[in-house]
């Protein structure tokens, strides 16, 4: 009996930690300057962070708990809590996850492979650059997991088709997998549709009345910052993982043979590409008027209506729990703002840092960028933006710049597998160890931090 109880404690230890932390917080006195509702919202934030990071309960359960606690603790009315759960950002998250399933199911990976290999030839470094740049460019419009899911099998097939034993080609494997993943991670902040967190930030900026950021305006802000990192990013990859072989001629030959079996583009595949181009055009030209999420949902409708994908496929392969969780964290972000907790935290951060923080905006930027980078390597990017965005936008400097900095820095989850969807996907192949992420990740993180600080100081202010 005691062993069973101990085992239960072992399994649920983080849930217990969350309960204890939440309960203790509720019994502590409310700090000066903070409302009771704001304090209770902060208690929920802490509990939710513990539950998300530890996965002590299923993620959808955490999402439900957010709503339940908001009402039970008297933070808001049930109807308003329900309203905060659904927004255009949530539509976008839902739509982009469904679009990913629809696109991946089209079998376009073979065509993409031929395209990349015809550009790169057989040199390992050229192939690495090909993966890095193509995944970066495509991800900026289509989202991380769509592109990584499509290109990962290609990279692994190349590695496995080499005449050498693939266990002897550790660096080649790391080089190609990280080129694919980090290309996608870098690309994910290029446009609003590159990642859910971008849409969340646009939603916050708009809902809190701080700024209007259209699809094109985001590109003007973020795309140059993304492009400028390509040369150094590729260089870092090549220097960190020196491949054991210089050419993949046999592997490329075998791969081309395999891909050739797929034949030319089918009419369905052409239609799938056309539909995605339409979705992209919708994001560029219509998202201002009808919302980025509605465009994504319209795209899903078109894929379903034309029979390119079955609802059953979408239903089975879309992680609805993630949609619910993001809806919950966005709701929590809104409550942080509405209850004044976000402003209180921001003021206290500023107070803690002393006059440096108020006198120099650069200190605020550095603070936001570094803290976001650290947190995102522990928690997920979107949850990081959803919870921390409302706090950081109140630090005192231009909210648009602070918001953009938070969203962009939330892509810098290079140092751990959990820091990004792409990282998690390549880690799931079993070829990589956590130290591989650290080995190359800190270099990428440093590079991206420097470039982002450069943009914050010298480029973005000109766009205001």
């Amino acid at each position, binding site marked *: 009996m*005691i*062993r069973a109880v*101990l*085992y239960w404690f*072992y*399994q649920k230890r983080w849930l217990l930690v969350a309960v204890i932390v939440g309960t203790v917080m509720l019994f502590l006195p409310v700090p000066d300057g903070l409302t009771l509702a704001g304090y209770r919202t902060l208690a929920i934030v802490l509990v939710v962070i513990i539950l*998300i990071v530890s*996965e002590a309960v*299923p*993620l959808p359960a955490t999402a439900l708990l957010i709503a339940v606690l908001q009402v039970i603790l008297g933070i808001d009315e049930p109807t308003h809590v329900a309203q905060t759960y659904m927004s255009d950002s949530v539509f976008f998250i839902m739509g982009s*996850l469904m679009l*990913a*399933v629809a696109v*991946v199911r089209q*079998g376009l*990976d073979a065509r993409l492979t031929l395209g990349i290999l015809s550009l790169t030839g057989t040199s390992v470094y050229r192939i690495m650059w090909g993966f890095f740049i193509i995944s970066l460019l495509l991800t900026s419009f289509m989202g*991380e*997991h*769509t592109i*990584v*899911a*499509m290109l*990962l*099998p*290609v990279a*692994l*097939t190349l590695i*496995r088709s080499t005449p050498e034993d693939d266990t002897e080609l550790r660096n080649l494997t790391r080089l190609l997998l990280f080129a694919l993943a980090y290309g996608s991670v870098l690309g994910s902040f290029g446009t609003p549709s590159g990642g859910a967190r971008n849409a969340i930030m646009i939603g916050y900026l708009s809902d809190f009345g701080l700024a209007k950021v259209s699809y094109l305006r985001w590109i003007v802000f973020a795309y140059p910052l993304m492009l400028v990192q390509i040369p150094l990013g590729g260089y870092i990859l090549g220097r960190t993982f020196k491949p054991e072989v210089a050419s993949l001629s046999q592997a490329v030959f075998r791969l081309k043979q*395999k891909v050739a079996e797929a034949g030319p583009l089918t009419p369905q595949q052409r239609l799938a590409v056309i539909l995605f181009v339409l979705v992209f055009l919708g994001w560029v030209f219509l998202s201002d008027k009808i919302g980025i999420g509605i465009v994504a949902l319209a795209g899903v409708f078109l894929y379903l209506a034309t029979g390119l994908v079955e609802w059953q496929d979408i239903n089975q*392969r*879309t*992680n609805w*729990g*993630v949609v619910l*969780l993001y809806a919950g964290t966005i709701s929590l972000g809104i409550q942080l703002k509405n209850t004044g907790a976000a402003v209180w935290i921001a003021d206290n951060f500023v107070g803690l840092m002393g006059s440096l923080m108020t006198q120099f905006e650069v200190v605020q930027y550095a603070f936001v960028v570094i803290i976001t980078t650290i947190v995102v390597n522990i928690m*997920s990017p979107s*949850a990081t933006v959803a919870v921390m965005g409302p706090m950081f936008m109140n630090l005192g400097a231009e909210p648009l710049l602070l918001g953009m900095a938070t969203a962009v820095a939330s892509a810098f989850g290079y140092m751990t597998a*959990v820091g990004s*969807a*792409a990282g*998690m*996907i390549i*880690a*799931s*192949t*079993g*070829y990589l160890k956590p130290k591989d992420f650290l080995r190359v990740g800190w270099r990428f993180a440093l590079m991206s931090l420097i470039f982002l600080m450069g943009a914050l100081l010298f480029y973005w202010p000109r766009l205001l």
Partner: protein
Amino acid sequence: MRFLVAISSPIYSERTLQIGSSIAEAFKAELSVVYVGDRPKALATGGVNLARDAMLNWDIHHPGVDVLRWAYSRLQEYEFIDADAEQFDPKDLVEDDGRLRVVVPHTHGEKIRLILREGDPVEELKQETNIRDYPLTIVGGGSRKRLTRQLIQFIDTSLLFVKNFDVDKKYKLLLCVDDSAATRRAVMFCGRVAQALDTEVMLVTASKTKGFGPGYSKAAAWAKRYMERLKIAHTQEFVTGDPATTFVRLAGSDHIIVMGKSKMHPLKAWLTGTKPGDTVLKADSPAILVK
């Protein structure tokens, strides 16, 4: 009888599989090989599953399937299963009792089971041992303090920690005898292992104080009689000192240590660890903990 062998990757699991198949062969037991891999974070499962679906179209399977394929071929090399048995087919992956199982060719389907799990190793092994009645679970390592303690605490089957196992070495058995209730089972289990491996046994009773209480003396005498009855070559030692250190010193690197589970209260064991747990952690050789 069916034993459970837990493996992680070819690099770290070669010895575990080797000793697992040897002991199973000696006991004429069947073998379940379970691979426990990392579970992707829940936030990324959608993307990971999407990628895995796409990889299947390119004949690239779950990394665990490759490890199980490797294990299958190794078991053929060790002649645990026939070399001319049908080939392992990763497509024959079925969901079974909440985990994935590779259905191996039917002639060997019962002798060998290949199971794929993802998640916390302790929780997954506990679930696996709840599904079937395994008398022995064979795991690698035994050097990671927290994991070793958790396995000893929560896994209900006997445990063999494969530590520094050398397949070319002829191991003797070092049986730790004390007044705990589990000593009796340990003696019987040790007798069976000694017969199966055709090796001799060193019976060791260690006391922290100079004298040996009646419980210790009775247990030692019974263990000796049991070995004599089974006609197993054995020696007997009574040693004073810290039990864990003594067992480890006497075992050296050429004995497999056999111990019964601790009589300590579970809560105290959880907080402070146990004598068998300390022995496993300090040992330079494999150790069997009999429950």
